[in-house]
């Protein structure tokens, strides 16, 4: 992700096989500026119309904190679930040949393609106490729809492709010979897995985790139908932003948004650093 310049130190003009680097860089900067930085700057600017004290008062309000905790907590759990099961899915898709494999491979991307509101409505219909799955869980005393558990499920759903799609290519490149070598050197299966396979996959897995997490934190459409939206219990931070907007409180809404942005950015940065460390440590690119 942050490769390239990092290894060589900062050098802007580097002999390249591609001509027109200056033009390409200019385009990149302009494009990123227009598409990413400008909207974010507008967000921060709008927030800046409040003083620091006011911003702090808004984001440390008990209800906002509860919503932030819920959003980040459920996003973390969902991303962790995806890391485990997404890895499994990728493993099966890469290492085994079975009828319908291509179909399943395509199905992985569906959560990307589906409008999130549709996903939310479908999941709610399934997990509501009278839905197909909810009906089975209800007698066990397990409530999914309209609880934080429902939020986790919605976020797991929308985050799945990130882990599978980042891990898959690395798994494909992974030399079977190294695994065989470790086996001939006397390693057991789980040792091979823990010492050889996982470390190589770790950077990709972390990237997938980070992407799934980042996507889940800001998710609104799929969650809003299944969450229940009860303040302090199942109210996600993006809903609170929508509520602030309903109150015509633009600055308050952007204050929460900026807090989410800052938190997400910090977490992604930390994950990036861990990843960079992992790459250096295990020397796999």
């Amino acid at each position, binding site marked *: 992700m942050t490769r390239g310049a990092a290894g060589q130190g900062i050098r802007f003009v580097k002999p390249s096989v591609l001509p027109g680097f200056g033009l390409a860089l200019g385009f990149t900067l302009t494009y990123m500026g227009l598409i990413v930085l400008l909207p974010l700057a507008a967000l921060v600017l709008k927030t800046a119309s409040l003083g620091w004290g006011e911003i702090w008062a808004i984001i440390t309000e*008990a*209800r906002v904190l509860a919503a932030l905790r819920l959003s980040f907590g459920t996003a973390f759990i969902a991303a962790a679930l995806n890391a485990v099961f997404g890895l499994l899915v990728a493993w099966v898709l890469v290492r085994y040949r079975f009828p319908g494999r291509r179909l399943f491979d395509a199905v992985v991307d569906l959560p990307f393609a589906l409008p999130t509101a549709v996903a939310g409505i479908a999941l709610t*219909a399934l997990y*509501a106490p009278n*839905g197909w799955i909810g009906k089975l869980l209800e007698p066990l005393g397990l409530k999914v729809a*309209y609880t934080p558990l429902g939020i986790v499920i919605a976020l797991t759903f929308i985050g799945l492709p990130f882990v599978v799609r980042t891990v898959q290519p690395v798994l494909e490149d992974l030399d079977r010979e190294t695994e065989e070598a470790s086996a001939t050197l006397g390693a057991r299966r789980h040792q091979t897995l823990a010492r050889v396979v996982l470390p190589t996959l770790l950077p990709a897995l972390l990237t997938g985790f980070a992407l799934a997490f980042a996507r889940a934190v800001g998710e609104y459409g799929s969650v809003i139908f299944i969450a229940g939206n009860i*303040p*302090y219990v199942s109210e996600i931070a993006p809903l609170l932003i929508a509520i602030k*907007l309903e109150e015509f409180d633009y600055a308050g809404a952007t204050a929460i948004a900026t807090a989410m942005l800052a938190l997400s950015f910090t977490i992604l940065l930390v994950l990036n650093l861990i990843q960079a460390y992992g790459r250096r440590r295990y020397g796999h690119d």
Partner: protein
Amino acid sequence: MAQSVSRRLLTRVAFLALPLVLAATLAQAANITLLNVSYDPTRELYKAYNSAFAKHWAEKTGDKVRVRVSHGGSGKQARTVIDGLDADVVTLALAADIDAIAKATQKLPADWQSKFPHNSAPYTSTIVFLVRKGNPKNIKDWDDLVKDGVAVITPNPKTSGGARWNYLAAWGYARDKYGSDEKARAFVQSLFRHVPVLDTGARGSTTTFAQRGIGDVLLAWENEAFLAINELGPEAFEIIVPSVSILAEPPVAVVPGNTDAKGTTAVATAYLDYLYSVEGQKIAAENYYRPVKTEGIDPALMKRFPEVKLFTIDDKFGGWAKAQEEHFSNGGIFDQIFKPGN
């Protein structure tokens, strides 16, 4: 189930897109186009009313007029107008939302509500209960909503105009019955303790109650309750009318800040005026809104509206501005009743 949901969604999407496509293709033939920014449960009403008005206007002036309607949550709709949507008229769920537009943009005069008769509310509605057939929890009045084991479905007053009427109706009832604001507050608080899901809008709550089977009673606009029964079958649900409820007055207004520039002020005003005509009132009644003038309307049609004691927001709460500030603003009573430990 999933399939029927997706099929229903598809038809709904098609249904929503159709008027847009029609409006786009026919726009060229029309001389005048008006944009009516409205809220969610008026879809059926304005669909019928717009063609009636177009006919009336063509007969009267020879001009063709086409009215496009945008629907959504009332607060969200107000915000799109504030953000620059070129509405000729707004027909929203609450006076507070139109007040917000007037305040934020100066596109409406502050006294907009005095421009049309009856507080600029050409039709009214009220809040009733929708229960499952046979009324298994025996719900008759507001007090029954806070009994043990009763789950109540209402949208979130912070995101839904209709839900604010629900909340204020309960409050008004409790204050009269128990005599003080503190007791009313305690009542509303325990009512919301019985709410397992707060959807963001009225239609969402109807879905939660009717399709997902959650809750024992849905607090709904009277017209929404009727539509739900029409849509989902009288064999599944019935309407319970409480002893007292609130007179919900969804107001209408011309937005001169937009119409003056477009030259549509006269026709926009006529469009809203016609709502008060016998024809307009009849269409409102047919779509389950209570007409403000009943002369000339078939009494058989009026039979669908049961007699109920109604109080107004002006009587009980001193108007929308005050109610909004006290109950629904940030940190207001509604926010407080959800605080843990309260």
